[in-house]
């Protein structure tokens, strides 16, 4: 700021003071008594700048920074006290000379503005379907990611916690989402700017549990305490200005800011949350004794014999036993364990009695802590808000830990008599996170399963590992089982195989608003954000992974072990170890650089005695986003030798020849330009017409200028019936409005960008490295007809309030028709691409949304409010060229699509009972069914008329969702509870059945009813443990498919419906006297429990969380949280 500006500001201040002085002198002359007092808000925070006027006179005063005021008035005169955002009060002056005034927030007033991220629009003039939520109303204390708090709060918004891990995004869809193969996530807007994710993941990636899901939440770097409010924009009219990015809806977040003339206030908030350790009662598994009896059956069926258990890939307690039998002790001259049935039985008995509680071994009740120190304040010419937050999570499991620091600084300056308003904002976060070492999940479409190399996710381990195994032996030493031919102990492994993630994220934002004249305002916004994530996956030389690379003790192991290397240049060579020393260090780095610039003009005017109102808003925006991803796998890194790298060149040869690049770098660039205009006209605010046009350009298709630009439009209307005379008089109806809107929104899909042919460089897949060449592959042929995915939406909304809005109802019905949606088409192949992405499919989604908010009791001491919302939609894919394969249709990851069904439908193989071998049977009525080869018809890759034999179960996404909240305030106490619910979808039960088990496996409770002897097929549906001879007779591959088909059969689904007690909170605000004594302005304590229990879920789930996908990796279910919070203002 220049000196002259300071000078002019000072002079202004002097003027104001002089003015007040003159007024005071004037009042003094009239000899009325002087009234003093302090004005505060309901939290006791002093309010400056509050205007006090003596009614019927021209006298007035304003409170100072400390909220103190002085005014002269006669007894009996009426003071009118008003302040923006607060309810205006009138006070009759009595005999007293001190009047302290507490201002109540004018909630209704705040609710009358819709913040779209572009504009602030008066609710009465807003024609779209949107919902405003105050963060304070829904915040879940102890939950660091604010997006999870939206669950059940907004009609039409589905939040599914497919994983509860910090940093991983829940699956959020608005109105069932609009794209079939493309992105279905809504966009997040923070303070007017699109918040891009560091990595862009599809819905099926979100449930994968892969390490990159830790970067999938757009708002993980945002301190929940900094959020002021949410605005959920749902229909075409509400999202119109977002044009081509808004197909899946918009969530607008507004962060806190300071207020003008507000006394500087510090606020300290602390949250301590304790998580519950999962219990076996929720996962109905066999105990160790029952498990060992299953192992004994496996032994009789030809498994778990010495050679296979001793040298095989996996081995549990039998492997431990055989090692003892083979262990010759030279001092005693005896084997550690004698190979007699008695000795063996005795040996196994200790495991039978182990009954290990893996949850207790691997999980801890370490609390999470959240500390936020914030400051807000403001003068006449500036306001500021600053906060510093620290979140630490010692780890729900021994493998996890999170630390996050967030900072936020927002200043607004009011210059040139408030004509110019400049806002600067700085938001940053630093995050350090530990997670169990994980590799990406892979699909095995042939046998119909997902697999993950070396999965050590503690949760997966606990529910998938035999309780007969022990983490430590009787002497307290770590006890090792066998995994991938190498010794394995989970506690040891979690120490030696982990991921450390460091994310830093910083955003600068500046906004200038200049009032050119009283009708026209010019607004500029510029924002820059840089985020980077460094991941280090450290696999030490002592890890099981390194062990697997070194396992070559016998020729049998050498031939089996896929981590050894057979050099094709030496055709007669034996498989050999290529990681003789050291471990593996995998480093990955993701960066995001994004800029947004926006210029807008806003024109507002009322004509003809204010009868006609017009607002024209238009502008231009430019968005720039670059993402990079690099990854390097360093073999032979010696963690115990200060990081000396000792690499066997043959491991690189192995990696290269097998087609696994040992390093990679990728870059994507997104450029978007949009022009938009919005016109709102109203007649006496009764009849509102809103038209929006958006013209958006994108570089998704590279240099091609065809369909680079897309115009979208919406038209909306509103009839504020409550402004009509016939309603105005009503005592019952206090507000009533109809909102029809119609419009087009669109999205340029990420997966189809071939307006011009897409050429990509590749390496030929040839056996020998010397034969390999670079080549340029036509990844996609040109599709000059490629266009944007579009949705036409008709929305009909009604808002009605009764009894002075103590009962508020909102109802919306919408009819969406998606067209030109991208899907995959099988072509003639003659053009050179047998499967092509094109605008082939269509989908309709029709839904209703309803919500009601009531104030049931509103007395001075007691207040009871209720909120309820429910939404339902019907979705149907009406046109589709893609033929989904069976795997996508039956696994329930949301990729199964078929005409006549909702997007992401779940299908099953029809389970037709067990046969007289205890094996599941399918497709027995098919004309091609061959009883000699009963599983030949099971083909997970089949796409040909598969719906003829698969059974439709239901959608994978819930189509009914909602919530019920109740809050009670009694004097200083408040109590609230919130129930969320969701229904209509089906979930696939965890894949529990296999054609071959090992002695590491644990079995679900229903295993006690398994088929054991012929005839059992009449009384049970639980397949047998296939014996070696049955495996040989039917074929190992065939039975693997058969058991997977059973996992994906009608016998293995459950309803996804649930009612969850989401949150219960009890709070106490200390009364004014106490806090005054303490010299602070407010003091609040509260206790919350989040996710305490499920009120209802399908009994088939046995108490498991229906939202959670058991995908391993870094995924954990959401936990039961008990949070103690403290909030002090001073």
């Amino acid at each position, binding site marked *: 700021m220049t000196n002259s500006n300071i000078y002019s500001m000072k002079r202004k201040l002097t003027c104001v003071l002089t003015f007040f002085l003159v007024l005071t002198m004037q009042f003094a002359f009239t000899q009325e008594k002087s009234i003093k007092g302090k004005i505060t808000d309901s939290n006791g925070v002093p309010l400056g700048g509050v205007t006090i006027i003596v009614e019927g006179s021209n006298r007035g005063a304003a409170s100072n920074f400390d909220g103190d005021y002085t005014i002269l008035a006669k007894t009996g005169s009426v003071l009118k006290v008003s302040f923006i955002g607060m309810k205006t009060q009138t006070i009759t002056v009595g005999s007293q000379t001190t009047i302290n005034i507490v201002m109540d927030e004018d909630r209704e007033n705040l609710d009358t503005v819709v913040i779209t991220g572009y504009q602030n629009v008066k609710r009465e003039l807003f024609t779209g379907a949107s919902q405003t939520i105050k963060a304070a109303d829904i915040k879940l204390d102890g939950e660091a990611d604010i997006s999870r708090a939206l669950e059940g709060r907004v009609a039409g918004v589905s939040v599914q916690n497919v994983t509860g891990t910090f940093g991983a995004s829940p699956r959020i869809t608005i109105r069932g989402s609009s794209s079939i193969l493309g992105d279905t996530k809504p966009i997040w807007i923070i303070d007017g700017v699109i918040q891009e994710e560091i990595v862009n993941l599809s819905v099926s990636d979100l449930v994968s549990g892969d390490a990159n899901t830790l970067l999938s939440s757009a708002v993980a770097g945002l301190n929940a305490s900094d959020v002021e409010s949410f605005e959920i924009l749902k229909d075409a009219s509400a999202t119109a200005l977002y044009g081509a990015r808004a197909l899946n809806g918009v969530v607008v977040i507004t962060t806190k800011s300071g207020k003008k003339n507000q006394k500087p206030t510090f606020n300290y908030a602390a949250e301590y949350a304790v998580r519950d350790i999962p219990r076996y009662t929720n996962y109905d598994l066999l105990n160790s004794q029952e498990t060992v009896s299953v192992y004994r059956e496996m032994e009789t069926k030809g498994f778990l014999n010495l050679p296979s258990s001793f040298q095989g890939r996996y081995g549990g307690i039998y492997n431990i036993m055989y090692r003892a039998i083979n262990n010759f002790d030279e001092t005693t001259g005896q084997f550690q364990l004698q190979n007699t049935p008695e000795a063996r039985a005795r040996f196994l008995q200790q495991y039978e009695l182990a009954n290990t509680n893996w949850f207790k071994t691997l999980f801890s009740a370490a609390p999470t802590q959240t500390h936020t120190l914030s400051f807000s304040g403001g003068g006449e010419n500036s306001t500021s808000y600053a906060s510093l937050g620290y979140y630490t999570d010692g780890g729900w499991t021994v493998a996890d830990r999170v630390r996050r620091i967030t900072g936020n600084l927002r200043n607004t300056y009011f210059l040139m008599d408030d004509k110019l308003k400049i806002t600067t904002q700085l938001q940053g976060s630093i995050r350090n996170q530990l997670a169990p070492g994980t590799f990406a999940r*892979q699909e*095995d479409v*042939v046998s119909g*399963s997902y*697999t*993950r*190399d070396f999965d050590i996710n503690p949760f997966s381990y606990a529910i998938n590992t035999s309780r007969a195994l022990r983490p430590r032996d009787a002497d307290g030493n770590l006890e090792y089982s066998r995994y*991938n031919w190498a010794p394995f102990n989970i506690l040891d492994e979690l120490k030696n195989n982990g991921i450390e993630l460091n994310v830093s994220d910083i955003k600068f934002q500046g906004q200038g608003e200049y009032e*050119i004249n009283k009708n026209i305002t*010019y607004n500029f916004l510029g924002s820059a954000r840089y985020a980077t994530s460094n991941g280090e996956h450290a696999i030490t030389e002592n890890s099981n992974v390194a062990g697997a690379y070194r396992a070559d003790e016998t020729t049998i192991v050498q031939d089996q072990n*896929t981590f050894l290397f057979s050099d*094709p240049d030496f*055709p*007669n060579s034996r498989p050999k170890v290529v990681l003789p020393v050291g471990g593996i260090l995998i480093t990955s780095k993701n960066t995001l650089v994004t800029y947004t610039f926006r*210029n807008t*003009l806003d024109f507002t005017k009322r004509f003809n005695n204010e009868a006609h109102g017009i607002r024209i808003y238009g502008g*231009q925006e*430019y968005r720039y986003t670059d993402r990079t991803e690099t990854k390097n796998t360093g073999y032979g890194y010696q963690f115990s030798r200060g990081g000396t790298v000792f690499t066997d060149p043959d491991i690189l040869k192995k990696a290269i020849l*097998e*087609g696994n690049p040992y390093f990679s770098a990728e*870059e994507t*660039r997104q*450029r978007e*330009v949009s*022009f938009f205009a919005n016109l709102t006209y109203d007649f006496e605010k009764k009849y509102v017409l809103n038209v929006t046009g958006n013209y958006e*350009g994108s*570089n998704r*298709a*590279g240099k091609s*200028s065809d369909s*680079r630009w897309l115009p979208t439009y919406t038209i909306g209307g509103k009839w504020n019936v409550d402004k009509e005379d016939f309603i105005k008089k009503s005592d019952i109806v206090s507000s009533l409005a109809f909102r029809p809107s119609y419009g087009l929104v669109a999205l340029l899909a990420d997966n189809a*960008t071939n307006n011009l042919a*897409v*050429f*990509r460089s590749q390496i*030929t*897949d*040839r*056996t*020998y490295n*010397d*034969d*390999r*060449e*670079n080549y*340029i592959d*036509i990844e996609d*042929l040109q599709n*000059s*007809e490629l266009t944007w995915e579009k949705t036409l939406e008709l929305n009909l909304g009604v808002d009605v309030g009764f009894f002075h809005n103590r009962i508020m109802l909102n109802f919306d019905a919408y009819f969406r028709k998606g067209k030109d949606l991208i899907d995959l088409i*099988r*072509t*003639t*192949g*003659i*053009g*050179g691409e*047998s499967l092509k992405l*094109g605008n082939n499919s269509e989908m309709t989604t029709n839904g209703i949304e309803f919500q009601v908010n009531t104030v049931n009791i509103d007395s001075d001491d007691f207040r009871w409010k209720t909120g309820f919302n429910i939404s339902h939609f019907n979705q149907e894919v009406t046109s589709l060229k893609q033929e989904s394969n069976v795997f996508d249709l039956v696994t329930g990851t949301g990729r199964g699509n078929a005409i006549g069904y909702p997007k992401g439908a779940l299908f099953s193989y029809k389970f037709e009972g067990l046969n007289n071998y205890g094996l599941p049977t399918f497709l027995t009525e098919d004309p091609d069914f061959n009883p000699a080869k009963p599983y030949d018809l099971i083909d997970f890759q089949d796409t*040909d008329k598969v719906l003829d034999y698969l059974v439709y179960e239901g959608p994978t996404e819930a189509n009914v969702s909602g919530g019920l909240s109740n809050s009670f305030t009694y004097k200083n106490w408040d109590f609230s509870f919130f129930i969320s619910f969701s229904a209509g979808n089906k979930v696939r039960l965890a894949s529990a059945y296999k054609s071959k088990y090992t002695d590491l496996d644990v079995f679900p409770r229903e295993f006690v009813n398994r088929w054991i002897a012929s005839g059992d097929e009449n009384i049970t549906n639980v397949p047998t443990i296939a014996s070696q001879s049955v495996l040989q007779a039917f074929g190992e591959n065939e039975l693997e498919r058969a058991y997977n088909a059973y996992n994906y059969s009608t016998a293995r689904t459950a309803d996804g419906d649930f009612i969850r007690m989401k949150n219960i909170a009890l709070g106490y605000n200390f009364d004014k006297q106490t806090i005054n004594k303490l010299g602070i302005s407010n003091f609040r304590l509260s206790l919350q429990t989040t996710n305490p229990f499920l009120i209802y879920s399908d009994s088939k789930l046995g108490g498991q969380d229906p939202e959670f996908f058991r995908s391993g990796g870094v995924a954990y279910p959401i936990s039961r949280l008990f949070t103690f919070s403290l909030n002090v203002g001073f």
Partner: protein
Amino acid sequence: MKNIKFNIIKVLAFVLLASSCNDVLDETPDNRIEALDTPEKIAELLVGAYPDAAYVPFLEPMSDNAGDKGPSADTGIDFATTLNKRMYFWDDINDTDDDTPTNYWNRAYKAIAQANQALASIEALGGGSTYNALKGEALLCRAYAHFMLVSIFSKAYSSATASTDMGIPYVTKPETVLLAKYERGNVAQVYSQIQNDIETGIPLIKDEYNVPAYHFTKRAAHAFASRFYLNKGDWQKVIDHSTEALGTNALNVLRNWTTNYAPKTYSEQNYFYASSTDEPANLLLVSASSLYNRFHYSARYQMNSAIASKLFFGGNISGNDWSFGIYGSSDLYYNIPKFQEYFKVTNQAAGTGNAFVTYVLLSTDEVLLNRAEAYAMLGQFDKATTDINWSLSVKSDNYNPATDVLTASEIATLYQGFPTTTYTPFYGIPGASLPFVAAILDIKQTIFYNDGLRWFDIKRHNVELTHTDILGNSYKLPKNDNRRQVQIPESAQSFGIPQNPR
């Protein structure tokens, strides 16, 4: 004041709109190749212009190289079992997996698209001598893929009926719309376009390749031309191109099974068979996505005892045993080491990935016998006999040139009385030529066992086939039977491409 501000904003908006937008939006969204604007890039495009799919797995069981081993034999892979069985009985198959006709169709047209893109890019860059060699390769690639398609999916060439026999769509331009329309045309048109591409292309070819064995070198191009003209019955051209392909010292570039394979281990033989550097006989190789290495020996309809006896155990006309070692513990697994799998791992723990097998598309062995057949057809029996002797000399055990060389009259005697109705190509075989043609086709059947070439000879010579199952039932494929044209893919039919009659 107001106007000035307004103007600034207007100008600002206009400048942003007019200048920056389109430049900004030209930014490439990811690491794709922006423009094919250099000879290197076009050369790399052509690396992908070879059909990387296997035809051996579906053509061998159709030919008389396959017999029924009985129900104990099984590929262990469902789609492969189905494929093997359906092809043996000349049934249509809708599967799109690797190793199927549909996959070959798709990949051949993919190769054509790569070649057409290269040609289009060369044209867009103005062509010129810098691009001539590339243009030559592109034309050969396009011709080769179309030739293989027409050979598999249409009738064998016949000068009498070619202009009415259904061809396959001959694609010369990159596809630019989602679903383009294509016509099958006729065999004559397809052949004339292939010939045109070959004749324009061959003079342009230069041997400037990083890995020549995977590209149309001059010799490979001539080898392909030799095969093409053999199908047309243009004998002198077969001889000319074959001679070009073989070079001056043909004997030294043949696959010498006698000295280089027979003494080696199984793995080493596999290695040599598809080696790009150590085997001079390999003129064109391709690494195709294929599971064939996992089931060629175990499939039910493959080399059973009868086939093994007929092709290998009886020795050859030089009076020696074949030097091919038949591996496999029993006739359930009889095989000759020709394949090796490259397994590109996607998931080490699950053991999943993609399997590739290197196939020999063109070799000197084939060219030599093409020439022999052409000599025989032109009545130059001594020259034909020389080529036959060369071929046998490197495939026979204990071959002694002093005693084992055949004379033309010996061959004529050996095949005296060979039925004249067995081979009935469109051009007709003169009586004097027949013994030589018959001898050549027999040698080819053995030495190209599991190379897929036998089927093309059967088609070209219109040989009647009989397949027998294990129970003794026999199934005939008469001459001119429509099932000799493999059915075009179901997906192509569904867009109105006429199917082959059945």
